[in-house]
């Protein structure tokens, strides 16, 4: 069962997309979310604030989504946080790489509220089952 108090970090260089994801999460009952415009900003936030879930784009300046994913999985205090990639990248090699690097899910843009809901719930159920 999803916890409405879960804290999300939305990482995307487009403020519009951050706002859309935040709005959708709010409609799904998750009101606790913060935003970062690239991987560097996200990593700083992650190191200073406790987050339960990361939703990240791939193509971003400074530190892209793959680099952020690697940094999260390399940090002992962060590697438990599920990372859902939400991106326009539709190349199979990117999808496979994300999965192999430890992403918890992969959504291609444009996407629907139902897809986001399904992926978030699936990831949370998987985490609950392994906890």
């Amino acid at each position, binding site marked *: 069962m999803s916890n409405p108090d879960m804290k999300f970090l939305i990482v995307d260089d487009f*403020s*519009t997309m951050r706002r859309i994801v935040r709005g959708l999460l709010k409609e799904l009952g998750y009101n606790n979310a913060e935003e970062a415009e690239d991987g560097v900003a996200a990593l700083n936030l992650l190191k200073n604030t406790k987050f339960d879930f990361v939703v990240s784009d791939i*193509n971003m300046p400074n530190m892209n989504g793959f680099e952020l994913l690697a940094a999260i999985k390399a940090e002992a205090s962060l590697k438990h946080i599920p990372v859902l990639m939400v991106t326009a*990248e539709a190349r199979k090699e990117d999808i496979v790489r994300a999965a192999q690097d430890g992403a918890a899910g992969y959504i*291609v843009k444009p996407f629907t509220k139902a*897809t986001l809901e399904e992926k978030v719930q699936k990831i949370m159920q998987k985490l609950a089952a392994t906890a």
Partner: protein
Amino acid sequence: MKMENTAVLANPAQAQAAASPEVFQQLGLITRQLHDTLHQLGVMPKLQNAANGLPDARSRLNYIAEKTGAAANKVLNSVDQAKNEHNAIASETRRIAAAIVADPVKAVATGSVMNFVSDVEAATARIDKHLTDIMMAQDFHDLTGQVVAKVVSLAADLEDSLVKLLVQAAPPEQAQKVEASLLAGPVVNPEGRTDVVANQGEVDDLLASLGF
């Protein structure tokens, strides 16, 4: 390049001394051939035109980014405000319904029902204005669509020139790969391609096939 030639190039003084008129003549010939080849291919004038158009394309793309960003923010602001109005009406409806169920006469006599009716009327007028704002925000599509068409035309010219140049300059075994190279970002046309997915279902199938 032979070793002795490399050594000569490393020392400009020696290179100047060693350079014979034949070398300069040969270089001039190669340059001339390259120039003529590019002209025969029609690359040079098109490439120059396309290059001249790049600053214009940059400003056009900035214009698109600004217009679409402004429209997106306008729409999201209007949606936020309309949702707040909608939530207020829903909440007030539940409250007045409870009041009517509890004591219908009192609900009417105290003016609660009429106040609710006028509140709803005012709120719907405000929501209608937000919907109109959302509709009007879509005007960016017409404006940016025209700009996009011009930038696409410029990009096509540039691509055509560069591909010709690249195919001409690349080794034969590499030339065929040139047109297959891809840029990162959204896949606009996935039909017929095996290296990309076309929708979320294919993403899920791919991950499932790999055991994720």
